[in-house]
């Protein structure tokens, strides 16, 4: 059974389904983590916790976009996964240069090493999947 897409393939079919599951888990985990951080100790590390909230929104947006929810899901997915890649590279580099920037760990700290590097791998897989399933002319 080949899941090679033809013209304008669905992003939520075949391999995409498993990818969305991973994004869904990250969306759930990041949202819950963010709510706990903001609800119990928001003043301790505001920057790190604000970043956690942003990351949570990005994962939720990526999940919805890839799952083809909403008016223009493909655009949403490109934007969210692209932002995710920039986010993990930026935050990963900053935490490496100066750990003081983020006193409490975020999902993107140290390029996501605390989460088995998945946060670093995921956007590349996501972008590759969006590219592979992109709409083609004729």
């Amino acid at each position, binding site marked *: *059974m080949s*899941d090679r897409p033809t013209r304008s393939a669905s992003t939520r*079919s*075949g*391999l*995409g*389904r*498993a*990818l*969305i*599951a*991973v994004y*869904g*888990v990250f969306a*759930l*985990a990041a949202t*819950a983590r963010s709510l*706990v*951080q903001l*609800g*119990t*100790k928001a003043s301790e590390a505001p920057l790190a916790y604000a970043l956690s909230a942003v990351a949570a929104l990005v994962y939720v947006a990526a999940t919805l976009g890839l799952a083809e929810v909403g008016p223009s899901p493909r655009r949403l997915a490109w934007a969210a996964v692209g932002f995710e890649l920039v986010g993990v590279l930026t935050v990963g580099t900053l935490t490496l240069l100066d750990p003081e920037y983020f006193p409490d760990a975020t999902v993107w700290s140290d390029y996501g090493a605390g989460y088995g590097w998945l946060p670093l791998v995921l956007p590349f897989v996501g972008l590759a999947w969006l590219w592979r399933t992109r709409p083609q002319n004729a």
Partner: protein
Amino acid sequence: MDGSLPLVLLVGSLLFAAVVAVYVVLDRTPDWGLLGFAAVIEAATLVTLVVAAVQVGGVDLHGGALVTLFGYLVAGLVLLPAGFVWSLAEQSRGATAVLLVAGLAQAFVVVRVMQVWPS
């Protein structure tokens, strides 16, 4: 909380993920056996949640850690059913692999519960 219950749950979750991996490799679609396996894990998770709720008064666990513990336990109840709903909507290797993701996430949840619970 007796350490053996979460440990059994962890081993069970990893075993489930391993079985699903075999299904994915063989390109087999999920069957009743797999669903039954998941149901056993689900029941064990529920038991863990109840045991934690009963015993949590006797341990030193407050604020964020308490919310975290039960957050993970509730997530542990949601992961596999959600995984099956998402997986069974399509018949493909990728759809079966959704259960692999769910099984590994379940194992991760159990590890976190074991870490948060004061020993």
